[in-house]
Each structure stands twice: as structure tokens, then as C-alpha cells.
């Protein structure tokens, strides 16, 4: 078990592209579009002399205290946006990372090399789960924060070019407070993700082929079967159990912050609506709100399920080597 830091390093070596370069590219593209947007706004402004709704020259003359605090709120939202967009990237990276983590080396037979070394299967599976819980989200968070700093720099320079000092807006925002609140969400997101981590690693260790199909189709078929039984009036799991939410967590809880809903059931659709409301999203990052989740049985049931699935993944890692291909 004392090998685990090195095993996690190994995971990073293999998945540098997903863990590091994916968030770098995602935030890089946002920054490029920010610059392009600024440039095209400037070009449009210069050629047409039309007053757009948003004129920096007007701002310079007529700006008030309330406007500054609104600008600060906008910057807070931008900071969240950088975190949110990289989180979506983390979701896709982790989804395919976990499905391949105990399958790809069986398919190319390099599992025979890894198994020729004195590393227990428990340590192997644990290092992969920890990489998904900690390494990928933390790297993405650091990259998102660095990108936000660059974003502030770009905005400041742009405003400066128009003789406007953007510093009051930055002072009106809460970059450090926001940063700290986002840091605090990382452990909660990691715990919340356990059912999906366990589920995806389980199929990765268990199947002889097509881990993606198994992991995705099993919950879908269960859901449809239950719905169909319900229509027939046959015994089925009643609607108030929220089967969709439970099964959804097996697939989507690796999205950082996917617990952000009062009930914490992680159904994507319903909380996207809430996320669009700025007041709600900022308050939902309040540490008391975030750590209130720790008091919910929902989280702990998920942790138990996740650990059980990880134990099953270890069991099959010990016994399954061959794949169908």
C-alpha cells in the first residue's frame, strides 16, 4: 500500500493527455475566444461608430459604485464558469479513464507486466480510484484557476486600453473567497463521485469486451424495465424512490459539483435549471451548504455502494486477465 503515490504517478504518466492537457486545451480555447470576442467588438466599434449597449467610453464617464459591484459579480460568475467548464471536461476524461483503467491493459496484455511486479491488486485499484477522486479534479482546478487569472489580465489590459481602470471591479469580486469555497468542494465532490468510480471500475475489471456498453446499458435497461413494469401495473420500484436519480449517480456523479442540489440526488437536468440562477449558485457554494451534504444519508449510501463496487473490482482484477479480443 505504500506504493500508492508511485502508482498514482504511473496513472498520470499514462493519462497526461486527459488529466493535464484536456483542461489546458479547454480553458485555452475559452481564452482565445475571449480575445477574439474583444478584437471583433473593437473592430465593429471602430468601423460603424454605432453605440452598442456596452460602451467602455460611456462606462468610464458614468460608472457608479453599484455598477462596480455588479461587475464584481460578473467576474465571480466568470471564475465559476472556468471551474464549471473544466469540470465538464473532467467528467468526460474520467468516464473513459475509469472504463479503460482495468480493461485496456488486459486487452493489450500489458497486465502481464504489471502483475509481474510486487503490487497488490488492491493497491492498483485504489490508485486508480484515487487518481479519479483527487488527481484529475485537482489538476483541472489548478488549470481553471490559472486560466481565470489570465482572463483577469486580458480584461484589465482591454479596459486599460480604453483608459478604464478595471481594478475596482476586481476588488469588488471575491477571487480568493471564491477560490477557497471551490477548494472546499473538492473533497465533497470526491466522496460524491465514489458510486460512479466504483461502477465504472467494476465493469472495467469484469467485462471481456465493451465496458462502455455494459456500464451504460445496464442502468438504462433497468430503468426502462421498471417503467414498463409500472405501466403494466406489475410489482416495480415506485416513483418516489427516484430510480433514475440513483442510477444516474452511477454514471454522472464523477462530474465535480454534481451534488449541487438541495436533495443532492445528482440528476443533471433538474439542477442545470438552478445553476442558471446566479444568486443560487453562489450561495450553494457556501461551506455550510457544501458540508451540509455530509449530513445527508444520500452521500453515505453512495460511499458504501462505491466501496462495495470497488471491492468487486478488486475481486475481478485478481481473477480476470483475458479479454475477448
Amino acid at each position, binding site marked *: 500500500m505504500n*506504493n500508492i503515490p*508511485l*502508482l498514482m504517478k*504511473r496513472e498520470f*504518466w*499514462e493519462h497526461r493527455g486527459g488529466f493535464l492537457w484536456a483542461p489546458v486545451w479547454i480553458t485555452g480555447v475559452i481564452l482565445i475566444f475571449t480575445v477574439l470576442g474583444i478584437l471583433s467588438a473593437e473592430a465593429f466599434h471602430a468601423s460603424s461608430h454605432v453605440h452598442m449597449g456596452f460602451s467602455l467610453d460611456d462606462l468610464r464617464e458614468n460608472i457608479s459604485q453599484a455598477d462596480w459591484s455588479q461587475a464584481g459579480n460578473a467576474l465571480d460568475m466568470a471564475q465559476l464558469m472556468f471551474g464549471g467548464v473544466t469540470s465538464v471536461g473532467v467528467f468526460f476524461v474520467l468516464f473513459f479513464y475509469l472504463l479503460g483503467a482495468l480493461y485496456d*491493459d488486459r486487452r*493489450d*496484455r*500489458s*497486465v*502481464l*507486466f*504489471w*502483475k*509481474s*511486479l*510486487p*503490487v*497488490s*491488486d488492491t*493497491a492498483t485499484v485504489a490508485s486508480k480510484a484515487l487518481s479519479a477522486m483527487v488527481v484529475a479534479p485537482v489538476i483541472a482546478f489548478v488549470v481553471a484557476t490559472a486560466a481565470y487569472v489570465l482572463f483577469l489580465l486580458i480584461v484589465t489590459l482591454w479596459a486599460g486600453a480604453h483608459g478604464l481602470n478595471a481594478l475596482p471591479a476586481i476588488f469588488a469580486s471575491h477571487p480568493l473567497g471564491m477560490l477557497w469555497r471551490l477548494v472546499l468542494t473538492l473533497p465533497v465532490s470526491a466522496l460524491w463521485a465514489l458510486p460512479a468510480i466504483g461502477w465504472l471500475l467494476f465493469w472495467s475489471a469484469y467485462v471481456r469486451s465493451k465496458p462502455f456498453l455494459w456500464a451504460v446499458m445496464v442502468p438504462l435497461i433497468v430503468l426502462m424495465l421498471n417503467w414498463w413494469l409500472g405501466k403494466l401495473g406489475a410489482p416495480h420500484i415506485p416513483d418516489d424512490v427516484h430510480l433514475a436519480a440513483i442510477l444516474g449517480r452511477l454514471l454522472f456523479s464523477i462530474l465535480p459539483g454534481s451534488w449541487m442540489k438541495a436533495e443532492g440526488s445528482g440528476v443533471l437536468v433538474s439542477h442545470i435549471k438552478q445553476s442558471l440562477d446566479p444568486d443560487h449558485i453562489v450561495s450553494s457554494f457556501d461551506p455550510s451548504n457544501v458540508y451540509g451534504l455530509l449530513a445527508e444519508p444520500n452521500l453515505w449510501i453512495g460511499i458504501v455502494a462505491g466501496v462495495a463496487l470497488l471491492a468487486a473490482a478488486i475481486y475481478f482484477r*485478481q*481473477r480476470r*486477465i483475458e479479454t475477448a479480443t
Partner: protein
Amino acid sequence: MSDAAANPIVRARNLTKTYGTTHALDHISFDIEAGRIVGLIGPNGAGKTTALKAILGLVDFDGDLRVLGLDPRTQRAELMEQVCFIADVAVLPRWIKVSEAVEFVAGVHPRFSREKCEAFLSHTKIAPGMRVRELSKGMIVQLHLALVMAIDAKLLVLDEPTLGLDILYRKSFYESLLSDYFDENKTIIVTTHQVEEVEHILTDLVFIRDGKIALAATMDEVGERYAEVMVNPDKADAARALKPLNERQIFGKSIFLFDGIERARLAALGELHKPSVADLFVATMKGTYA
């Protein structure tokens, strides 16, 4: 260690493995002592790889099997501190860099010597920054061998280690093993179809057929037991009366392979030879695919 000398490195009793209805291993028992180089030889599908996988804890089995006193099924991680394994050349992960592979093995293996490994690698064209996917098959096996030879292990298991390599790499593979690695504290088990290339380095021979051991003997015993006689046609009937294992024709003479017949009686029939392992193998496995 003194207990290693008293206990066999590998001790199998009634080792059995079934896939569905076929017996890959059918109640086999054997011991492998320290300081031996054992050739495990058999036709395709005879159970060689299954036996090796059982020894390495890569497959479940019935019966009793102890490797260095440990149960491979439940103590694989512990066992792998003392046991090294090269399957065939294709098992090193293709994405890994040479330097990463060295760093990883150095980190997880308490008996690995980075200096030794780097010394082996310095005799090759392999550079630390190269990825395995950029290496040729021969270079991959050199890298794997460098990693394995830098580990002070008690048992080295080789499963078709030179498959698909050209003759230069094959020769240097076994030469490195013998001159830079093997000593009386180490034991090597090797399976291969290229019997001619290993027969001069083996100390023990195990033939396996249909999941059963067809022959298990030291090379000295093989030399004493088996003899090949080149017989002129006039004495061929007398030779056949001694129930040879095998008979083949060459240049109008018959070559008979005998098991356990007195040398003096055979010498009267014709010219005596030590049979090659390949000939012995062919004779023992007659009718395998029939």
C-alpha cells in the same frame, strides 16, 4: 538461505485446472529445486502456459501449489518480490517511456538495482526518453530483460520469451541470461518451441502433454536413459524387437530411439548417439494431434 535448499522452489501436488470440460492441467505433481534451469516443453495447448500462470498467481486452480512456500493465489504481491516473469515481447505497455519504466520498477521492487539496469541498457541502443511503441520487438525484449536481470529474484519464469525475434536477439537473450544473471541461487523455468536453442542451457526437462507430465528428468538422466542408434537394414529387425520409442529412416539406415536399454546391447546394433531434445520430444508426443 538454508531453508531454500531444503524446500523446493516450486512444489505442485495434484495441480488441476479445467476450462469447461477440458483439463488444461490434470492432477500433475512435480518439484523444482533451487539452482535449476527447467525447460517446460509441450505441444500447443498442452497446458504449459496454464502451469506457468498458476505458478505466477495469474489463474485460479485446484490442488496444492507452493512457490517459495507461498500460495500464488492469495500471496501474489508478496511472491512477486522473489519471482520475475517475462511473457512474450508484447507485454510492456506501449505508452511508457524507458525512463518511466525504470523509475516505476525501481519504486515498487525492493530487490531492483537501478545501476545494474542502466548498465545493461547502456549496451543497447535504447535511450531513456524513448517510448516502448518506438522500439523494435528485439529492443523491447532487451528492455524487459534489463529490467528483470536487475532484480535479484529467486525464480525467473520465461514464457516463450524470444517469440518473433531474429536469431541475433535470440542468441544474445540466452547468453545474457547465462553469463550475467544465472547462478546457483536462482532458478529459471522456460517454455519455448525453439527447443534447439535452449537444450544446451537446460538442467532439467519436463514434457507436458494433454495436461499431464509425459516426462520429468534431469538432462543427465535423459542422457543415461535415452539413446539413439543408427542401425543397418540387416539388424533392423533385432532393433525393433527391443521396442524402440521411435524409428526414422535416413540414408538407407534406420535410426531408433530407445528408452532404458543397456548401452552394451545397443552398441552391438550400431552407432550410438545422444538424442536431441527435439527428437525425444517428437517421439514422446507422437500422435498428439491425431
